[in-house]
């Protein structure tokens, strides 16, 4: 009987290893109820009491060995089958993905949003106001009376003698100060209009961002510090600014503000025309006459204001060389942002 068991084991293991017969069939053949091993075990009753546990143990060992061999073979077959399936599922990963269509915000919006976020982060509110504006807000209250030569620098569209298309968002300085008591900290982005013929750098419609801060003890250093922070947030920590004296009727002292060229970092290149600096905005301390017309006492309060031209900023940011692209709205242009 011992021999018979050993023979079955041997035969079974070799059958399994050969892989010639179906593994399930082998399992039935050797381990099934009518299988060979079962058949042998049926003869156990004829054994002596001494032989029985020995043979029983051996029979178990044989069964385990066969079971193990079958399990192993089954696992291996499964693995092979899976590998085959996976291979069949092979795809060309270089085929482009399925298109998800998204649009885009206009480049002017993208940069304006950034600017707004920077200033909101610095504690500024955002003010809106009319584009069709009284001469009073656009000029008169800003220390630019009738017949003032400064009116020349801004070719104005007139609706009538008293109403203009605002030439500058500075009109918002007056509107804000008329309605709000210091401390005032606002920016006012918006459309402005000047009677400039359209070319690569001029448009009769463009955008400015006005800034205004009024409180007790506001200084020109505060203006410088504020603009430094703004410029660093916009252009990175190594950006520097430079104040150049200038004249605006509604600020005194006034300055034009340059930022160190973000292409050459101040070395001089074609972008900054060799200057190392690029003019980005005008700024200054609010003129006492302007505070006065808004009912704010210049002996108690002081303030600063600045005005940024959005289009120029955006052109530089994205290396756009023609302002007309902004208003032409060719989707092939818009898609790039």
């Amino acid at each position, binding site marked *: 009987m011992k021999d018979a068991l050993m023979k079955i084991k041997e035969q079974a293991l070799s059958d399994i290893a050969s892989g010639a017969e179906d593994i399930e069939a082998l399992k039935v053949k050797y381990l099934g109820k009518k299988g060979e091993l079962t058949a042998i075990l049926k003869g156990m009753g004829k054994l002596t009491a001494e032989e029985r546990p020995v043979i029983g143990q051996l029979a178990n060992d044989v069964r385990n060995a066969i079971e193990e061999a079958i399990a192993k073979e089954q696992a291996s077959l499964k693995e092979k089958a899976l590998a085959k399936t996976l291979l069949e599922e092979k795809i060309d990963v270089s085929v482009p993905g399925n298109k998800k269509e*998204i*649009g885009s*915000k*206009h480049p*002017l*919006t993208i940069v304006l*949003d950034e600017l707004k976020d920077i200033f*909101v982060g610095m*504690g*500024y*509110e*955002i003010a*809106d106001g*009319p*584009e*069709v*504006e009284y001469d009073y807000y656009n000029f008169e209250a800003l220390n630019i009376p*009738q*017949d003032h*030569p*400064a009116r020349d*620098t801004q070719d104005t*569209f*007139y*609706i*009538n003698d008293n*109403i203009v*298309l605002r030439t500058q968002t500075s009109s918002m300085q007056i509107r804000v100060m008329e309605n709000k008591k210091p*401390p005032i*900290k606002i920016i006012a982005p918006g*459309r402005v*209009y000047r009677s400039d013929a359209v070319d690569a750098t001029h448009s*009769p419609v463009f955008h400015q961002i006005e800034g205004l801060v009024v*409180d*007790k*003890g*506001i*200084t*020109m*250093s505060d203006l*410088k*510090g504020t603009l430094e922070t703004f410029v660093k947030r916009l252009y990175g920590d190594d950006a520097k600014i*430079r*104040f150049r*004296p*200038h*004249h605006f009727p509604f600020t*005194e*002292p*006034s*300055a034009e503000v340059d930022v160190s060229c973000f292409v050459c970092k101040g070395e001089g290149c074609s972008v900054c025309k060799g200057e190392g600096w690029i003019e980005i905005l005008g700024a200054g*301390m609010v003129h*006492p*006459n302007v505070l006065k017309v808004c009912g704010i006492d210049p002996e108690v309060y002081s303030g600063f204001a600045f005005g940024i031209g959005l289009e120029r900023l955006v052109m530089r940011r994205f290396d756009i060389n023609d302002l007309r692209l902004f*208003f*032409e*709205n*060719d989707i*092939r242009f*818009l898609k790039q942002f």
Partner: protein
Amino acid sequence: MKLPVNWLNEYVDTKNIKIKDYCDAMTMSGSKVEGYETACGEITNVVIGKIEKIERHPDADKLQICQINVGDEVLQIVTGAQNVFEGAYIPVAKVGARLVGGFKISKGKLRGVESNGMLCSEEEIGININGEKSTGIMILDGEPELGADFVEYYGLKEDIVEFEITSNRPDCLGVLGLARETAATFDLDFKKPEGKFTENGENISDYLKVSVLNTEKCERYAARVVKNVKIEPSPLWLQRRLNRAGVRSINNIVDITNYVMLEYGRPMHAFDIKYVAGNEIIVRDAKKGEKIVTLDGIERELDESVLVIADSEKPSAVAGVMGGEYSGVTDDTTTIVFESANFNGPSTRRTSQKLGLRTESSGRYEKGLDAEETVPALNRALELVEMLGAGEIVGGMIDINNKPENKVVLPLEAERINNFIGMDVSKEEMIRILKKLDFEVENDMITAPSFRTDIGCFNDIAEEVARIYGYDKISSSVISGEVTEGKYTKSQQFENKIKTLLSDIGCYEIYTYSFTSPGMFDMLRIPEDSELRKVVKITNPLGEENSIMRTTTAHSVLEVLRTNYNHRVKDALVFETGNIYIPKAIPVTELPDEVKMLTIGSYGKYDFYDIKGIVEVLFAELGIKDADFEPINDNPTFHPYRTAKILDKDGNELGIMGEVHPLVAENYEIGEKAYICMLNLEKMLEVAYSEIKYKEMPKFPATTRDLAMLVDDDTMVSKLEKTIKKFGGKILEEVNLFDIYKGKQIPEGKKSVAYALSFRASDRTLTDEEVSASMNKILKNLQSDFNAELRM
């Protein structure tokens, strides 16, 4: 303002300052330098030569062969110039020379005759840089040294700095003003011209009488007379100075007036006394209808608002703007009047605008000139007359001064200035700076110089100190004081959200002009009597096509669609948030309402339901609930059967959307179906409810039932849906339209509509009976309201 540096150096010595440093420092102290050029800077190898001999060219009528002595050799040069003669001293460009514009001279043959160089005109060697045409080869005076370097011998090399002067500093539109700024910037000494000359024993009152009738507009009028005038060309040095400052040389007298203008920054006029009828000058208002032919040859009709310089008969000049045609100086002039006056800035500006005549003179006067400088400038002119030997100065001066001296006196508040600017400058240093700028400082009181018409308050003084001290030395600080909260308003947030959402779901944002063409109404088929045609008009538009403020955004977006269609962009889906401008009344007397609109436009693969889907998802995200789309067929811009009014839940109109009428699309040359949607942002914001509350996830399962029915073809599904919702009861959770079918098996005039309904209760699993009861109620009402037939 062009400043030749040698001219500057007469009043402040900048010879030791490098030109680049000069320009940078001036910019940083407030006189912005646009750039500089070096006159004659690129000229090399041009020497002084003498023409020894001239022969005709054997093969060319217009050429001459010259033998030129250039000191160490004799060069043969062929020239086409006709003004050369034997014995003439001329500038000679030798082979290898460089002339203006980098032009290089090489050896050559002209019609077979060898030519070793070139004879030069003033233009070619940078003497004449003003674009004035030279008439021939430059002939040199006297007997200069043969072979000497031409540029060096005459000291012709000179830097010319171009300044951009702001409108508040007309004093810097002159050499003296810039010299003063230079002195303050570099801490140098500044000296003014003395204006000294000798008068003859006569008295001006025997020659001329002046009366000023409008003393407000003519603040000061000063005049002097010069007799025995010799009109001739100015000396070369003076011609060159004018030329380098950008002014054409005319004759000695006119040149003197221009020279003084360039130095003092104030216009001046010289005229022939023989044209002054009655030898009397009257400064008065013009009479209505009075005419004058100005120097430019144009006859101009005047009125009482215009100030004129007149004689006893007629106006001879428009004060401060332009002289009349008989007011100049001619070759036979013998006695002249030099006029130096101060005309009121705003009135000069109004006159110049009224006549449409901007001149060098009006541009200066309108900025407000200093009446105090009237006489020093006049004296300087006479000093030059004497220097040039141009005539004999008649004794005495007429000076009618109606401008009371009005000095601006301000306290010197050193500490306040330092605090205000954010710097630490000693009081002594402030006083030094102010004095350099010709302010007087005494006992802590500052008196501004009269030419500084821009000074009027504390801030002005602070600026003077700060700019000379250096803006770059101002420290940076963080704003102290009350903390402010940075924030967006509700409507700003709303707009931002819309832009983000629309761009995320495939729309491209556009920016269009707010003004547009009145022709758009016809293009959009808007009726003649439409309110939309009442517009805010621009009185001075760039062109008809940009002359009205838009009352609808349809035109703007259609133009963008047209552009893209023309550029062969296949599909377009764009949006804009922008204003329309609705006048309160016509004519416009107050500001119009500026209404912010959201406009969406498309052509290509998008259809009505794509755009509607965008609007729906937008509404869902913005919390605009239960909006209605109601068909309208009477808007001529739109397709009559593919257009809807968009209403909020209370029936208020939010906007319109639909297919663009084919005739309109044709007007915009869009060869495909186009769609636009226009929504009023403010009205949307009013009904948007964005608060989000969490709802518990359902614990019990839903039961779904499909419902298919036949209804009349023109039944709107939105009405079916309303009925379903109304009668479905509380347990009806969701209604989804999944099919609309017409055609086979469906009778003519009918359509099949299929819904998937989902029922659920939050506290139990629904029984079949409950759901069926609800379904029956729905069916009954659909049958009665719409004559719906259930399909199995």
